[in-house]
């Protein structure tokens, strides 16, 4: 069967079939570039989620005076939960506090067995909303409420962590853009290689009156198909790699390696979108001036 009158997709498919080695080189190069991009995205997403979990942990503990009656704690918790910037406020009775303390001590919990009385006070645990100011103003405001003995900042280093996460986010975006530009560069060079390999064919098309758009179309489609194939391969590669590396090893800040290298379910879609965007951009750059009807002959 002789095929004529194909659209850009058909012509792209055909020219891909004519040079399998070129395709293999293009797809594997793109696959490596996308795998690097995918690893970076995974680390950003998982570390971002971990930081978010840390930042939304209990950040303020309101200690009640011994004179505060048994109803004061729950009432204060309800009042504080309505304050701006407070995600949740929950009353923790002294018995519950002792249970938690035991749990935290783990194997050393038996040290508490000799206690005759529970020394811990009643309290209210505040969880602040992400990004909410946990500054001294809030603590001072709460301290003036009836029945409050003191306000303890649960994790004084959280503020520093929050600043670091914010700065890290900006850096991550900048690095992400650089990586994306790297993928565009790889794609544009791959397309340039393909154009060079088919120079004679393109010259001939220009001679018989093919417009630059007619010649460019299959290259853009070819680039997109290569990008999608590379995205699929890179996703598979990362899934296997992360599965192998995800040992239950502990990392600082209570993180686990398995959490940091968890394969994000949307990663293949992200890589496919990135690949298509990069190959379209790279395709335009790669074909560039080389398909102008006067210059190419």
């Amino acid at each position, binding site marked *: 069967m*002789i*095929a*004529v*009158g*194909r659209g850009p997709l058909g012509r792209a498919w055909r020219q891909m079939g*004519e040079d399998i080695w070129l395709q293999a080189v293009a797809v594997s190069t793109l696959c490596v570039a996308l795998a690097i991009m995918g690893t970076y995205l995974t680390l950003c997403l998982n570390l971002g989620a971990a930081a978010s979990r840390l930042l939304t942990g209990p950040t303020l503990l309101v200690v009640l005076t011994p004179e505060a009656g048994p109803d004061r704690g729950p009432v204060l918790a309800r009042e504080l939960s309505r304050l701006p910037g407070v995600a949740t406020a929950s009353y923790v009775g002294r018995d519950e506090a002792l249970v938690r303390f035991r749990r935290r001590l783990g194997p050393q919990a038996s040290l508490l067995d000799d206690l005759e009385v529970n020394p811990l006070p009643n309290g209210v645990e505040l969880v602040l909303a992400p990004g909410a100011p946990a500054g001294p103003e809030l603590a001072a405001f709460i301290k003036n409420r009836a029945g409050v003995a003191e306000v303890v900042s649960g994790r004084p280093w959280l503020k520093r962590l929050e600043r670091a996460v914010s700065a890290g986010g900006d850096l991550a975006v900048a690095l992400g853009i650089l990586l994306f530009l790297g993928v565009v560069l790889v794609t544009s060079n791959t397309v340039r290689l393909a154009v060079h390999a088919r120079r*004679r*064919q393109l*010259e*001939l*098309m*220009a*001679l*018989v*009156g*093919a*417009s*630059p758009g*007619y010649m460019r179309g299959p290259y853009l489609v070819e680039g997109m198909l290569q990008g999608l194939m590379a995205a699929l391969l890179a996703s598979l590669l990362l899934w296997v790699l992360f599965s192998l590396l995800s040992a239950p090893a502990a990392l600082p800040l209570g993180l686990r390696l398995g959490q940091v290298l968890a394969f994000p379910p949307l990663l293949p879609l992200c890589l496919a979108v990135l690949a298509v965007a990069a190959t379209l951009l790279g395709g335009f750059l790669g074909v560039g001036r080389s398909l*102008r*009807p*006067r210059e190419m*002959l």
Partner: protein
Amino acid sequence: MIRLEQVSKSYPHRDEPALKRVSLAIPPGQFVYLTGPSGAGKTTLLRLLYGAELPTAGRVLVGGVDLGRLSPGKLPLLRRRLGLVFQDFRLLPSRSVFENVALSLEVAGVERRQIEHRVSEVLEQVKLKDMASAPADTLSGGEQQRVALARALAPGPDLILADEPTGNLDPDNALAMMRLLVGDYVGGATVLVATHDPTLLSLVRGARLVHLERGLLEEME
């Protein structure tokens, strides 16, 4: 159909211009031989006519279109009105005869059914219909040049430019090729054949003869 007005063409790294103030007018339907030794400027003149080069000075008009003023975007439209034949055939080697001929119609956006009809027609004219599905690189030189001619004829061009079309052919195939170029198949198109082979000149009676020598054009009797 073709008008050259005081056309000169120089290249940066050559002392002597390839063409020197060449003027030529070819009316529609005329058959013209452009003769001259190798390096005389024949190929340069043809390249100016299909817009691969721009003149250093003067004007080149094809079908009333001044190529110096033609925007790059319109150049493909002009080339679709031309049929080009080269000494080295310039076929897509792995594609079939049919696909090579269809290419000149495909790029112009002709419908599939019309392409199939027209390609069959021109392959019949150049006596290659039975070889339609054969890959181009399996054909002999003479057959490949007939495929190239069929590709040039398929869109029904107004002007056929042939640069040494028999340069790679034996005398029998050269004769067959020239017969195709002067037959009814060209459909009244203007034909300009560049050649340095004097034996071809006797094949076309009444053909106009112009001679290029070191970039200067001279009309011959």
